[in-house]
């Protein structure tokens, strides 16, 4: 890292005192820096090498109940001084918002748990190239129908976040990530049609990464199994969402319980706290302090301590995801979910948001379906968060008598999220975290599949 903690702490303190002199009644400063090395190989050769170092400073000032934010990548003294004064001027031009303000001083995180988020391993460029090459080579070796590749990418990154505010809060944490993704292309020699498969893994610790070969082989399996996909007739059937697509559905739930959509009356889960919103198989947590979690952090984007929140308990909505502002709007305290991209006002985001697994294996779930869809890919943005209306491009496999019969594509699945959540009739035992939002396999009783 470019600067020591102390340098950024001093920088933040300087900015805060300058903001105060400029008329700010409250302010907070976030400084983030990071470095990334990414290599992409394609068909055995280096395709792209990217190395970067960056830093950002974000400032939020309150002048009474008026507020403005700013950010810069230019840390020169004159530039920062100008930024502080411009931000204060900007705040004076907006309208008073009675809800605005920092969280209370008593809300600030006081503990500093070690969440095991950082691994100082520095990989050489050659080592990363080697990893990517091994992943891609394994995909080519796995099946002769893998004939081309979009490449394999290995990325390592690390960074630091420092947050300080006018309550005297000062916190910082380091994080790192190591990831490999492999995207082989399989082709059908007879028809010439092609399918891409993608598989990936992200870990905070280098040592925890699965061997490159197994990621490459899984990517190949995912490409090859799509070959020969066809359409099916339009009909209502049960739909089994695999881990990836179930995760996407859970991300929709996450958006629907986020404070900003709720107070703007733009969520289909408005006024549902304490009510049954999903099948009783559904219990969902958001855990900001999961050790080694990709979404873990000791404090949120406003310095409020993160924690483990139960969001849905056996189908009943027990908590929203809130930061200070959206919490005040809803008459509730923050849940420690302020997410802060440097330079913007906080919004709400998940930490590690997951559906608690049940006991069924994915095979048992597929085996329970006489005729239906095993969904492995979703494309497009056909979700209306205000109404819950859901209509998306899909591909996967047709299930006949409990077995995967053939691959399907160029179909859509449609329903309404309100009903879909209640229609979840099986939950798998296969929860794996590949991102901040994760779900085991699930089965929805019935959805409209549109095809021929």
């Amino acid at each position, binding site marked *: 890292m470019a600067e020591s903690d102390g340098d950024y702490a001093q920088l933040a303190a300087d900015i805060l005192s300058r903001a105060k002199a400029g008329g700010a009644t409250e302010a907070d400063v976030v400084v983030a820096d990071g470095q990334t090395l990414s290599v992409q190989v394609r068909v055995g050769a280096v395709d792209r090498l990217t190395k970067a170092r960056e830093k950002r400073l974000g400032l939020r000032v309150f002048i009474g109940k008026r507020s403005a934010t700013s950010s810069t*990548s230019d840390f020169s003294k004159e530039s920062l001084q100008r930024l502080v004064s411009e931000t204060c001027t900007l705040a004076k031009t*907006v309208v008073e918002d009675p809800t605005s303000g920092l969280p209370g001083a008593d809300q600030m995180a006081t503990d500093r748990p070690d969440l095991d988020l950082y691994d100082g391993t520095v990989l050489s460029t050659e080592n990363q190239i080697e990893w990517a090459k091994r992943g891609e080579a394994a995909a080519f070796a796995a099946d002769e129908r893998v004939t*081309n590749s979009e490449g394999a990418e290995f990325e390592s990154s690390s960074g630091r976040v420092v947050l300080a505010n006018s309550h005297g809060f000062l916190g910082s944490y380091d994080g790192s990530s190591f990831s490999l993704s492999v995207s082989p292309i399989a082709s059908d020699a007879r028809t010439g049609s092609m399918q891409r498969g993608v598989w990936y893994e992200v870990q905070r610790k280098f040592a925890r990464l699965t061997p490159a070969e197994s990621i490459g082989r899984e990517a190949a399996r995912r490409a090859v199994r799509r070959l020969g996909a066809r359409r099916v007739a339009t009909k209502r059937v049960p739909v089994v969402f695999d881990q990836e697509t179930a995760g996407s559905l859970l991300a929709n739930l996450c958006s629907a319980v986020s404070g900003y959509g709720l107070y703007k009356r733009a969520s289909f889960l408005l006024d549902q706290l304490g009510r049954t919103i999903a099948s009783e198989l559904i219990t969902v947590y958001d855990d900001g302090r999961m050790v080694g979690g990709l979404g873990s952090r000791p404090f949120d984007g406003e310095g409020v301590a993160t924690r483990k929140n139960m969001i849905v308990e056996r189908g009943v909505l027990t908590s929203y995801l809130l930061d200070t502002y959206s919490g005040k709007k809803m008459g509730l305290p923050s849940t420690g979910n302020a997410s802060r991209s440097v330079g913007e006002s906080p919004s709400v985001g998940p930490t590690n948001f997951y559906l608690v697994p049940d006991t069924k294996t994915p095979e048992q779930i597929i085996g329970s379906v006489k005729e239906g869809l095993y969904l492995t890919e979703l494309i497009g943005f056909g979700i209306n968060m205000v109404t819950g209306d859901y209509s998306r491009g899909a591909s996967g496999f047709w299930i006949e008598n409990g077995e995967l019969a053939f691959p399907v594509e160029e179909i859509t699945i449609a329903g309404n999220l309100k009903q879909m959540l209640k229609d979840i009739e099986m939950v798998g035992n296969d929860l794996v975290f590949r991102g901040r939002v994760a779900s085991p396999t699930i089965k929805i009783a019935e959805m409209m599949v549109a095809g021929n």
Partner: protein
Amino acid sequence: MTEPVQLATFGVTEADARHVLDRLSTRDVDYADLYFESRVAESVSMEEGIVKRAAKSILQGVGVRATAGEKTGFAYSDDLTKKDLELAADTARYIADSPKGTRMVPIPIHRRPAHDLYPVDRTKAEVATSERVALLNEIDAEARRYDPRIKNVMASFNTEYKVVVVATSDGVLVADVQPLSRLQISCIAEEDGNRQIGSFGGGGRVGFEFYRDQNRHLEYAREAAREAIVNLSAVEAPAGVMPVVLAGGWPGILLHEAIGHGLEADFNRKKTSAFSNLIGKQVASEVCTIVDDGTLPFRRGSLNMDDEGTPTGRTILIEKGILRGYLTDKLNARLMGIALTGNGRRESYQSVVLPRMTNTFMLAGESDPQDIIRSVKRGLYAVSFGGGQVDITNGKFVFSASEAYLIEDGKVTRPVKGATLIGNGPEILKKVSMVGHDLKLDNGIGTCGKDGQSVPVGVGLPTIKIDEITVGGTQR
């Protein structure tokens, strides 16, 4: 013009830039460039009748890139000292073999961009924040006046000024100032527990006066409110294959997803696109001619030059149904031995250049839009869309309607809920049987994502009829 004034704003001289390019070229690189960028972005936003947020951001840095064969080495830095530039150059040239001969980087031919498509007077364009606040307040009032069922109005006004200087190893040293702004409005309508959203917006490489001209901002507000009110009475959308009539303008997102991405040169060089090897083949019906044009004045997708300093142009992608050309950047044009089209774009100095679209649209045909609707017995009339996406490799694409109606016996009847349309890129345009004479470009709201990079784009379409496409509704 002896030296682009803008280079000085980065505290860098032409000699510095040449020194870095020379350093890159001590290895066996085919091409190298430096991309200096300074971007100031400002936004104000309103909700619940209060303009409660204002923000400003400053982004400044340099991207240093070298290519050798198919390889790209790339580094970027927020700092612009000579040492930072040298460090970035050493990273970027890693991909090339060394040493090489004494190839010298040519002395740049100083020049201005080929076009002057967005001569925005910055003094007029940059109004006080209070004027932007007033604009948003008028929008809120107009949307609520449109219909008392409008219960919330969310509006944001974003502007950015980007100064870029591109210095290349093939003799380009050129600067451009690129303004961009956008006004976006969403309205929530409520009636008897039924809540719906409607959205509208517009913009371009234009100044503030554009939005007040002919009270455009109020028209946007009424459109967003109208869509929300229409959707209050929407019925379930149909499911299955049926004829679809697309209205002109923004529904041109069809072209962007169905064929545009598939014609970007990188996918075709790697033979990972469903359009690989289809040049000269019929991929659309004869009534379809589609172009990508980065030279339309003040348009959101337009550029005086691309991000490698190449003049933008007009590229015919499909001519009367026949696939004619790909969109290229320097790397892919060189590797494929085809013409440069001025489509090398990047989100910022932090990203590598990729071949990207600018403004992509279908030329007007001869049909009367009313006749097109009348020709459909039962189908869908789609007026506005949210986003779309494509799987380049198998060609399957989707785009999602946000305002659509049933067509019954040649008449537009009931509004239906949003639905996703799905098709196959190389096939869908063969099913276009009628093209209207009413070509319309979108209002300037499009952002295209590729490889994690977002760039502003435009689309356009006359009213067209697709004989059959799968509509992802819920009703048989």
